[in-house]
């Protein structure tokens, strides 16, 4: 059916799904690449992914190996630095560069895990609230209001205090605090889409609630969700690093960047490099993702496109 339509029709309005998708991607890339910062962010992010994936090949040392006679060695360009330890060593003689490289694995994993968890949970709950409305909606939205009443880091800190300090518990706690944003966005989008003609047509054609929710309505609500997902990705990395810094996230000797900062804190006035580099790594990662987020928003928001 679809083939015959493309064969006889050469107007741009009717295209096969594949061609339509290619066109949308092309249009998306056109708007995304107009934003120079977003492209830079994308390249930095790709580089970080590569570093994380190939960490065992790139890292010059093991992230856990303690070179006891090389404690607090400065970076290579400073007096006393060594080419073997490019960014110097930490208070127990571990190579900082290697720990940073392995730390990229932690941060990206945290971002992916937390975003996936809060995105899927938020979409499910938001779809139900927006589709069924009534008391279900009221109960869900009050619950989300309650979560939003707490500062996210405080709630995450207390949740981790209950569950016990570990990276997994920290990620679950952060996902829970980020979820209400997805619920609200999905609900609002579903409510706006639900009364459109194509949804009514689909319902009259006999589509059940599940199909209506996931196949008909959801694909038309994705743009704000994608933008929110990038925001959550960077927030998750920041919050997890903050929890690590407070001693309530990943536990030593894990080379997680926030945990590294916590371990280095007492040396700040003696050895600036043990403090500076892990934080710089967090900043660069979060900045790259936020730059991409700005580009995504510009490319996906039709309201901004016209101006």
């Amino acid at each position, binding site marked *: 059916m679809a083939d015959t339509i493309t064969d006889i029709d050469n107007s741009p309005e009717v295209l096969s799904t594949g061609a339509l998708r290619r066109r949308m991607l092309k249009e998306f890339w056109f708007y995304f690449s107009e934003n120079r910062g977003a492209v830079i962010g994308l390249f930095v992010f790709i580089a970080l992914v590569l570093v994380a994936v190939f960490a065992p090949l790139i890292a010059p040392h093991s992230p856990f190996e303690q070179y006891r006679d090389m404690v607090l060695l400065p970076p290579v360009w400073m007096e006393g630095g060594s080419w073997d330890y490019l960014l110097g060593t930490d208070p127990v003689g571990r190579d900082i560069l290697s720990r940073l490289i392995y730390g990229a694995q932690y941060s990206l994993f945290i971002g992916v895990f937390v975003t996936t968890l809060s995105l899927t949970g938020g979409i499910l709950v938001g779809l139900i609230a927006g589709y069924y409305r009534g008391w279900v909606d009221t109960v869900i939205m*009050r*619950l989300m209001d309650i979560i939003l009443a707490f500062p996210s880091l405080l709630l995450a800190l207390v949740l981790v205090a209950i569950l016990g300090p570990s990276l997994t518990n920290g990620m679950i706690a952060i996902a829970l605090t980020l979820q209400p944003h997805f619920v609200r966005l999905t609900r609002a989008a579903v409510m706006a889409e639900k009364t459109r003609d194509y949804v009514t047509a689909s319902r009259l054609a006999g589509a059940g609630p599940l199909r209506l929710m996931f196949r008909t309505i959801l694909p038309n609500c994705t743009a704000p969700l994608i933008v929110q997902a990038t925001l959550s990705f960077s927030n998750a990395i920041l919050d997890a690093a903050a929890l690590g810094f407070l001693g309530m996230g990943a536990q030593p000797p894990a080379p997680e960047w926030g945990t590294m900062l916590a371990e280095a804190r007492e040396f700040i006035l003696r050895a600036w490099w043990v403090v500076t580099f892990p934080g710089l790594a967090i900043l660069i990662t979060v900045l790259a993702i936020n730059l991409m987020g700005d580009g995504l928003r510009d490319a996906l928001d039709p309201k901004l496109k016209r101006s």
Partner: protein
Amino acid sequence: MFGFLLRRLAVLIPTFIGVSIIAFSFIRLLPGDPVALLSGERVMSPERHAQISAQLGLDRPVVVQYLDYLGGVLTGDFGSSIVSKSPILDQFLALFPATVELSLCAIILAILIGIPAGVIAAIKRGSIFDQSLMGVALVGYSMPIFWWGLLLIILFSGILQWTPVSGRISLMFFFPPVTGFMLIDSLLSGQKGAFISALSHLALPSIVLATIPLAVIARQTRSAMLEVLSEDYVRTARAKGLSPFRVVGVHALRNAMIPVITTIGLQIGVMLAGAILTETIFSWPGIGKWMVDSVFRRDYPVIQGGLLLIAGIIMIVNLIVDLLYGLINPRIRH
């Protein structure tokens, strides 16, 4: 306006009850015996256990316990710390002014720099100033503030030796708290150098806490201003021959401020969360550090009470922001 207030309260009260249920039930979710957790005694005989259980009212049905807790909260009784044995509300009230002083300084700093910067960036859209300001704002927005604080300590306390590393005032000075705000108290004490000492202790924490709100306010002001500047009434004002200063400063700014005020209100919650990190780094004796210390001491009644108090304050602040918003923007009331 009164109806608007009532509608907002109708949403707020169930939310507060929900928040109190969460704060109440969290001790019961903890692994371990709530009697031991709430009394702080690890080893006790069965008789002692029963005695404490009865004393704390833990032998009654959960619903009765909750209503009792809620009744206590509404009359200002949040229970007592198991470490210091002092009432939680007293501890909170003693530490809260420090957090308010820090947050106020930070938000004032953020507004004083953020709004003019955003306005200028919007007027000179696309200029080097605009581009570099938006770049700096994005860096500020992405900043891990606990690291930013450490960097500032390295630079200003370590290398330049301009500012102290921690606390609210030098130990050389001592005077009884009058207002709880160190800047005002140090002036009232009349001791020479006390005010300067308080100010130098406040400088770095304020900058750190202001960083993210500043970035958010600058970005928000710029985009609100850009939107308003393209409106017809601004063009009319220009066409009337009003001076550019009057067009921007009076006509445009007033409407552009509406979304910015909401943003500033929302930043209060962000600041209270940021205070957790900032106060920890600078050993600032406020409620953020108090909460972190309590988590480490496993002082569960304090965590419970603090959680409820902080959430309550954020809810009240949000309500005030909503009401202000209704006052300046009549459209929202309906």
